[in-house]
């Protein structure tokens, strides 16, 4: 069963087409990846699915469990079970980690928060008096954001570049959290241009310049990452003849 279906999705900003006729299906309980070079429209797709401000004036359909999300705002979509992890998580001046986690958690108990933080490799007591602000590194904020998603227990998680700004040692925690969410029934969409992230997906879509170029098993899509996605005169669109030759 598809938890999310995107049909003929188009989005333009100031007359420029950003997403063109996208058709994607995300199967419930699976980890899917959306890959492609910078400027492919991957993050834009994530924002459109989440319904962020400025990303709702699209044509086409986004169906969540068969229901159109067109009239749903961010909070309503979250209440349906959809959430988003940003590539660059927000900073909240003065907002204590406990307050942030409690606000995001489905079950608002300290025990559950500690559990969620442990999953991303964070010792709650070490950070208890800290705020989600500029005193945390980008990698730390990324972990707290992922922990807040774990605590929320969502049905559909979109993670925009989940490994960006994460050191090698912490990658294990990030991947562990993704696997934990998957094991606990969440469907995941990983927006990435990292081969390591792609490898944990079960199905992948390749985007370039707002267009869906290909889809299929990860082994097929990963070829684009192995030196075969060549620069081209068409604004990042891979030269298909070169790929086919390879």
């Amino acid at each position: 069963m598809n938890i999310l279906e995107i049909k003929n999705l188009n989005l333009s900003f100031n007359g420029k087409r950003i997403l063109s006729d996208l058709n994607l299906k995300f199967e419930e309980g699976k980890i899917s990846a959306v890959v492609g070079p910078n400027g492919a429209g991957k993050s834009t797709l994530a924002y459109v699915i989440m319904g962020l401000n400025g990303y709702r004036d699209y044509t086409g359909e986004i169906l969540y469990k068969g229901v159109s999300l067109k009239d749903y705002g961010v909070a309503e979509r979250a209440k349906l079970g959809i959430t988003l992890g940003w590539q660059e998580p927000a900073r909240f001046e003065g907002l204590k980690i406990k307050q942030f986690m409690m606000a995001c958690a489905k079950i608002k108990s300290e025990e559950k928060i500690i559990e969620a933080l442990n999953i991303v490799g964070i010792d709650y007591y070490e950070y208890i008096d800290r705020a989600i602000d500029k005193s945390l590194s980008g990698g730390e904020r990324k972990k707290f954001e992922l922990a807040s998603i774990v605590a929320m227990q969502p049905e559909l998680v979109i993670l925009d570049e989940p490994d960006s700004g994460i050191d090698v040692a912490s990658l294990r925690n990030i991947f562990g959290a993704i696997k934990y969410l998957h094991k606990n029934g969440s469907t995941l969409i990983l927006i990435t241009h990292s081969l390591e992230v792609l490898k944990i997906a079960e199905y992948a879509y390749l985007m370039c310049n707002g267009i869906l170029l290909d889809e299929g098993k990860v082994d097929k899509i990963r070829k684009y990452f192995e030196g075969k996605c060549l620069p081209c005169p068409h604004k990042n669109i891979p030269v298909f003849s070169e790929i086919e030759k390879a």
Partner: protein
Amino acid sequence: MDINQIYEAANIMDIIHDPTAPRLVINKDKVVNSNTVEGLEVYPKEIENGVSVELIVRKGKIIPKPVHLCFGITDEQAVQYIIINVNVEDNAEVSLLAHCVFPIAKDVLHKMDAEIFVGKNAKYSYFEKHIHSETGGVKVIPKTKVKLDENSRFKTEFELIKGRVGSIDLDIEASCGDKSVVEMTTRISGIDDDKISIRETGYLEGLNSRGALTSRIAVRNNSQAQVYNKLVATGSFSRGHVDCKEVVKDNATASAVPVVEVKNPTAHVTHEASIGSVDLKQLETLMSRGLSEEEATELIIQGLLS
């Protein structure tokens, strides 16, 4: 309303009965409770509509527990005028925690004039927490002048922790001697037709003196805020920073005037000011976890003011 309700509102009931806790409690124009400890001298004097207080921390004395000041008004209508003169002598240290409690105020004026001297190598911290009624019937006008001697520290924080602002007109000025440090922080949230006026000024006159002025203001509905923060650096190698952040919602208005004046080429003073609605990314992050816009806004403002 009796004085016990003031103690409860300020959460200082334990303090009132602690023989080791230095304190001074004033209800309107009467001293109702006080206690001193070694090294701390407090001389209150009842005056018309208020109390005048002289507070001295003797040379080299470090007061281990915070000195609790409580300025309460148990009436709906009243005028309270407080005059405070503080002298923290050389090498002394003291921290004051002041609660200004007007829980049923409908028409209350609380006016304070303070003069503070912090001696050589001395430290003085003053945390002022306000508890107001929900009617907005409070007018607060505190005016403070601080003089810091060599290598001394002055830190002050002003915070409204409960109730409506009503009208606050805060004016504080500090001049810094050599190697002295001044820190002023204000956190206030206004609603309805509240009026907030903050004027903080630091004169970095001494060699290597330091100053930081921080304001965090949130205004909603039809409330108004004006923040005027000024650092003047004349001391050699003095350093300072002015930081003002105001969040505005609904029909509220806010203005921020960070002024930096540098009159010494070796000094360095920076400033930042931002006024605007709640940050969209913060808002959408919380909303994407299921909070409503109102809940998310409230949490962001809580953080900003914490």
